[in-house]
Structures are given as C-alpha cells and as structure tokens.
C-alpha cells in the first residue's frame, strides 16, 4: 500500500516575480506604505492591550499549539469523524484534492441550484482557489459581502492582508472606488460611517435575493459536525442564514477534535486578530434544520497542498495557523512592503512559510523560493503568534531545504560566498589570513575611512549604507600584542 503524499497547491498562491523585485515595486507606493503603516501600528497597540488583559495568555497559547499538534497527528481520523457527523445531520461532504477540483465542485452545486449569483462570506480558502474568477467564467456572479472584500472586489484589486484585505487603501480611496463602482452611490464623503452605510445599502438587496451563499470556515468540529465562522460585520450571519443553499469551503487543517476545544481558540483568535475580547458575530451551524437556516448544506474539504506540507515534520507547523494575522501586523517587512509583494493570498510571515510549502518550489527562479528569505528574522511574529508557530525557525528550515535541493547544480554566487566564508571560519589560521586580506580594503576607503562603494553583491549594501574601513589592527592582533606585553 502506498501512502498518498499529496499534490502541490495551485491557485492564487504564487506571484509573478520574486519577493525582492515585487517589494521594490511596492515600496515605491508611498500612499500604500502610509496606509499600511498607520493601520498596523493601530492594531499592534490594541492587540498588546487585549492580550495583556489575559493573565493566562501563555497557557492559552500553549493549549492552542498542543491542540493543533494533536489535530495534525491524527488528521485522517478527525476528518472522517467530521464527515460522518456532518452527513449524519443532513449535510453533504465533498473532498477536493486541489483548487481545480474545489472550483468544479462548487460551480456544480451552484449550477444545480439554477442561479447565477452567490453571496460570499469573507474566506481565505476561496481566495486561495480563485473561486470568484472561476465562477465568473461560468457566468456566475460572486458578491463579496465583507466590507473590505467588497472594496477589493469593486476596485478589481487583490487582498493584501488576511484579516483586513483592503488595509492598503485609505478612506478617501474607498470613497473614489464606491463613487466609480456603485451605480446608486453619489454624494459620498470619506466619513467611515457614510461609506459603511453606502455598502450596507448596496449589499442588502443581494442578501435578500441570493439563493446560494459560499463561506469559508474558521473551525470544523469533528465530534459534533459543527462549522464555525467568526466575523465582525454581521454580513456572515446574513449569508449563513438567509440563502437556501450554503456551501462551505474548509481547508482540511481547520478541523478541531471537540466542541469544547473552541473555548481555547475563541479566546485566542479575536484578541490576536481584531484585538477584541470577543468578536461581534460567532456563527455556528450543525447540519440542516427544517424551517431554520439553509435547507441544503455542502461542506467542501480542501487539500490543495496541505497533505504535502504534512510530510515535513518541521514545516508542518505552518498548518497550525488560525489566520489571525497578528504576525502580519507586527512584521516590519510586511509593514513596509504590504501584502502584494508576497504574490500569494497569504502574505506576511505566515505566508512566507505557508505559500512555498503549499505550492512546493520547483526551481531557484520560482517566486515562492524567495519567500523564506523575506524576513530579517527579527522574531516579532513568533512572539505574536497565538498558536506559537516558530516562524523564524521554519524560515531557516525552508532556506536550508532550498540550499540543499540545489547542492547538485551549478553553485550560485551565494553558494560560493558561503563556502568561502565556511573555509575562513574553519581555522584560526584561515581566519587571520582573511582578516589580513580585509586590511587591504583600507585603501578603498576615503580619507574619512568610509567605504561608499563595493562590487556586486556588496553593492547592494553600499547602495544605501556606508561601511567603515577595516581597522588597522584586528582584535586578535591587539590581544596578541598586549598579551605578549603583559607576559614580557
């Protein structure tokens, strides 16, 4: 019997250019940088306050982490249990190996409902598989009902944050988008309330007319067959209760063993994501109930690379993620580049470890191969993660995997530099030789002992930073000189 090791994830998980190239482009967008900088700064300080209220925060994180480890250790068993319980309560369960299968399944269900319009609850999984685009090709309009997702959809833009997809837009930009895209909207100011009311009006009609809703899931509870969605605006609650048919797309790692496990995550998630003690709307549903809520419920379980990630004992912890985005908000790289630089729908530190693992990285030129390097390893993400994913360590692990995978090919400039450095570090003699050689750089320095230009790749340093001239005397030379002076 062979073990199924999964197929690579496809969909909106990979950009067109490497992170350094995309980041260079994004960094030039000064409006985006001010918007993201302002928003992340605000969320950061609020999150610290919300977390500070919990004396048992560290134990909660530990519990969340332990639960997720347990889930991954017995995933097949838990998924089967979830399937059994959903079916027993009147739901239908579908399994999708990848984005293509998931799109086909969902499109098939919508068509069977004979409708050309669906309302959507904000969902990362549907962004991952590119559901809206797929439905559009088949003549079905998907209407995003989350305010930020609606902004993105109307602007024909892409989300740049897991929780706040329009974080890169400010309110005056949103006003312009609404004026341009909402037929009935005129005379709008940039007052957030005015903008929210315009969106509310726009959406209300859709809620009442839609026959089908599509959602993601924050949690799927194995022992009861319950699905859960947490949200802030109430749009989710409308989608989950009004239309006749509900289709939920859930990544297979979102299963939790017991209903009582939600106790831990419902404390961790809101405080880490929106810095709230409790999110305004928590919707849970178990199967179907005549005369109450949707009459048909379909659960689509999505693999799309997750099983492949499971095979990496270190990297698999990326699947612990509960999509709170605390790591994005504290990341100094994300704060400056914004989310689009990461290419994938999963940006920021978690994206840097999740996206390349979900897709696999084919060659050195694969844009996702650059993601594990998109971090200064400052460690802020690890501190903020509510389920204690050691993101810096996984970044290094993935860098090592990349380096090892390319060992048999032609050595790159980096390979040669690292090998040369390893030789230098291999003995005090070679180290001293290198130090002596370095002294030669004193001639490159100006009279002010500043080095302002160096050859590639060090030119990337000197493009914005000087280097001091190496000292006349290294530490070990000083030690030898003064030591012998003492002994004399």
């Amino acid at each position, binding site marked *: 019997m062979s073990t199924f090791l999964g197929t690579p994830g496809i969909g909106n998980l990979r950009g067109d250019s490497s992170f*350094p190239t995309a980041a260079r482009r994004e960094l030039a967008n000064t409006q985006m940088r001010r918007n993201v900088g302002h928003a992340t700064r605000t969320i950061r300080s609020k999150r610290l306050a919300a977390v500070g209220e919990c004396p048992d925060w560290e134990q909660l994180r530990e519990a969340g982490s332990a639960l997720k480890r347990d889930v991954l250790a017995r995933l097949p068993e838990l998924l089967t249990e979830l399937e059994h319980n959903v079916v027993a309560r009147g739901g239908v369960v579908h399994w999708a190996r990848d984005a293509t299968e998931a799109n086909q399944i969902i499109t098939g269900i919508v068509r069977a409902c004979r409708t050309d319009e669906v309302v959507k609850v904000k969902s990362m999984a549907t962004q991952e598989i590119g559901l809206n685009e797929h439905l559009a090709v088949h003549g079905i309009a998907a209407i995003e009902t989350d305010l930020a997702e609606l902004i993105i959809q109307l602007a024909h833009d892409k989300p740049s944050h897991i929780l706040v997809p329009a974080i890169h837009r400010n309110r005056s930009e949103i006003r312009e988008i609404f004026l341009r895209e909402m037929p009935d909207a005129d005379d709008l100011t940039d007052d957030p309330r005015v903008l929210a009311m315009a969106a509310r009006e726009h959406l209300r009609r859709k809620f009442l007319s839609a026959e089908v809703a599509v959602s993601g899931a924050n949690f799927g509870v194995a022992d009861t067959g319950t699905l859960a969605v947490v949200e802030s605006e109430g749009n989710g609650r409308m989608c989950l209760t009004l239309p006749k048919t509900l289709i939920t797309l859930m990544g297979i790692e979102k299963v939790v063993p017991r209903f009582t496990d939600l106790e831990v995550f419902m404390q961790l998630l809101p405080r880490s994501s929106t810095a709230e003690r409790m999110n305004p709307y928590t919707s849970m549903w178990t199967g179907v109930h005549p005369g109450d809520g949707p009459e048909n419920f379909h659960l689509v379980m999505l693999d799309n690379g997750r099983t492949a990630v499971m095979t990496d004992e270190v990297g698999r912890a990326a699947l612990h993620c509960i999509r709170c985005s605390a790591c994005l908000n504290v990341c100094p790289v994300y704060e400056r580049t914004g989310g689009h630089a990461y290419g994938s729908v999963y940006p920021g530190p978690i994206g840097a470890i999740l996206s390349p693992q979900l897709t696999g990285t084919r060659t050195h030129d694969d844009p996702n191969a650059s993601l594990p390097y998109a971090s*200064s390893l400052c460690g802020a993400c690890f501190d903020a993660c509510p389920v204690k994913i050691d993101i810096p360590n996984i970044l290094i692990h993935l860098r090592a995997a990349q380096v090892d995978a390319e060992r048999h090919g032609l050595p790159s400039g980096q390979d040669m530099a690292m090998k040369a450095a390893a030789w230098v570090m291999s003995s005090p003699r070679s180290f001293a030789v290198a130090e002596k050689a370095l002294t030669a750089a004193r001639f490159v320095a100006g009279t002010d002992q500043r080095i302002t230009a160096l050859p590639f790749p060090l030119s990337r*340093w000197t493009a914005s930073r000087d280097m*001091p001239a*190496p000292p006349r005397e290294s*530490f*070990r030379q000083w030690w030898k000189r003064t030591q012998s002076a003492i002994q004399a």
Partner: protein
Amino acid sequence: MFGAQLRIALLATCLADAIFPRAAIATVQLLERLGHEVVFPNDQTCCGQMHINTGYLTEATAIVRRHVEVFERAGCEAVVAPSGSCVGSVRHQHAWVARRAGDALLARRAETLAARTYELSELLVDVLKVRDVGAYYPHRVVYHPTCHSLRMLRVGDKPLELLRNVGGLTLLELVDAETCCGFGGTFAIKNADTSTAMLADKMACIIESGAELCTAGDSSCLMHIGGGLSRLRSAVGTVHLAEILASTEPAHPRMVRSQ
C-alpha cells in the same frame, strides 16, 4: 557571586574581531576592571550564525563543532560575547543544528556550553550581579534593543539599567525602539530595498531623539544603523554598549591594558 573572581572566556565574534575590535577590547577592559580574568581562546573563528540563517546548515555544523570544542577546551566558568545575536545562535540554534545533522552528542555538548554563555549585559547583571560598573560617559545616548537580544535572549531592561548607572550619560527615549533596524544578516543584501526602508524609519526615530550616539549590544546592527547614518552624513554616531561601559573618568585608575 559578585566579588568572586571569575575566569571568563571571550567569544569576540568574527565581526568584532575583524571590523569592530573596539567592542571586544572594551569587553576585556571592562571585565578586567571589575576584577575578573578574561581569556581569549585563540582558535575561535565564528559562531556560524550567518551560515545557519542563510540555510547552509551542513557548513554550519562544522563551525558549531569547532566553536564547542574551542570553548570546552578553554575551561572557563563563563563565556561572554558582546553580541546578543551570536549568543542567541549559541543558545537557541547550535543544538538544533547538531541534532539536525544527526549528532546528538554534539547537541548535548552545545547545550552545556550554551548554558554558561552570556551576552554582555546578561553576564554583568545576572551572573556578576552588577548594575553600576563605574563607567563615565558624558554623552546623550539612545539605546536600540537589537531583535535577538530582545526576543531570543530576553535581556529586557538589563542594558538600560547598566546605562542608567553610567556617570554623565543622558539616556534618551527611542520611539519604536523594539522594531527591527532591517539588518537581518544576508537579508540586508538579498532584500536590500526592504532592509533600507526599515533602516530609514529606524534612523528617523534615532535622529528625532536628539541623541549624539546610538548604542546597542550588537556590532552587526550598529554597522547597519551606523552605515545608514554615515551615508546621510548625519551628526549621530554609533557606539557599542561595551565601549560605553568600559569608559571611565580620566581620574579613575587606568585599565591594565590600553589600546
């Protein structure tokens, strides 16, 4: 333990050894002034952090092995480095690297060595139990807490406590102090644009503070910050924490060695 003379091995760090010797020299002078014996195991080269963080773990394993052997041989009660990130690597990466390479024995040896390896402010405050090292440094200074000293070692307020006790020194507040300066080792080269954007914000906060000098416990981050300030021809300089703590009033008894 304060009062008892310790024999302390200096992990100079490759960067301080080759480019910023004053940080390592200051560490020696400071500890000797406090009455301790400092030895420099001459066979040392580097902790291997650059190789580890860039993903060259095979190469790093050999460097880790050398580090462990050299400092075991030194036979000291404590090992000190004027760097939070090198000590972070020793404490949180060496055993992991060894274990990954399948060398459980080396991993255990690395753990034993790591348990007596300290960043300078940790050694002073936690081991030597000293907060006032008798330094005199009449300058306006901001302190940048480097990421690895902050989040890998959790040195917390120790460097600030030491600085508050320095005679003549005015310690100023640094806005967004805990945000990374953008160095990140090879990150500064591989993602130079992003690194520079981070540095620009860090420098703006440093300049805004009104300080003459920015100090930190890592020569690497100071090389980055200092390199940026120098490029701007800014009036703010950089100085390693060890250099401040080693400075004394001219009237004070001179150190045993001088540069």
